């Protein structure tokens, strides 16, 4: 039993299959998803009549600003990656 267990634990032939490292790009993708989710919620709440148009506009504007910033950074990172490869 012990040798079986030890064999399983310590016998690692070949290259390890690990998950991808977390990069700035994947972090930005997550952020983008979150901001998008918030934008969808905002849209939905507005259509369900929970906020007046004026509030909706300002909040939409601020979220879109945030999203645009993230999208821009993603795009520039991707271009940078492309140039490098």
């Amino acid at each position, binding site marked *: 039993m012990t040798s079986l267990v030890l064999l399983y634990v310590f016998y690692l032939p070949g290259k390890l299959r690990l998950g991808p490292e977390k990069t700035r790009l994947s972090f930005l993708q997550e952020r983008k998803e979150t901001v998008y989710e918030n934008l*969808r919620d905002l*849209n939905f709440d507005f259509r369900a009549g929970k906020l007046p148009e004026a509030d909706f506009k300002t909040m939409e504007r*601020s979220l879109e*600003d945030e999203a645009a*910033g993230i*999208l*821009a950074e993603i795009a520039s990172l991707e271009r940078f990656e492309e140039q490098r490869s």
Partner: protein
Amino acid sequence: MRGFSQNRWSLAGLVVLTALLAMGAGDDARFNNLGHKLMCVCGCNQVLLECNHVGCAYSDRMRGELAAGVERSESDDLTLQTFVQKYGPTVLIAPTSTGFNRVAWVVPYFALALGVISLVVLARNWSHRTQPVSNSASQTPDMLDAYRRQARKETEL
């Protein structure tokens, strides 16, 4: 532990029954009221009158004593005190509102007050906090507008 103690049960039952019969309706309410302020001390952790008392070595006797106390028309405090004398302070179901025991009752409200105050202070601080500026200084307004449109399109609903 709990055995078949029918003799004891019937005896105590008789005591309680006769006591109950002898009491008026007001006594009945008092018995009920006081019985809900006492614990059964057998270790079952139940209110005296809600203890599943058959076979319980204590609660039948305690109910008898309580009925007798009520019948003697003692004050509520005196009756409860008699129980405390006999069975110790743990026989009372909740801490009294005197001395250190008062702390037990006060602390939760104190915590509530503290919680509400800190919440209000926190909420105030938060609403005065300035919004962090997003890091998009290197982009021209035109580009940002394009991205903004993209974001809007992708999140219609």
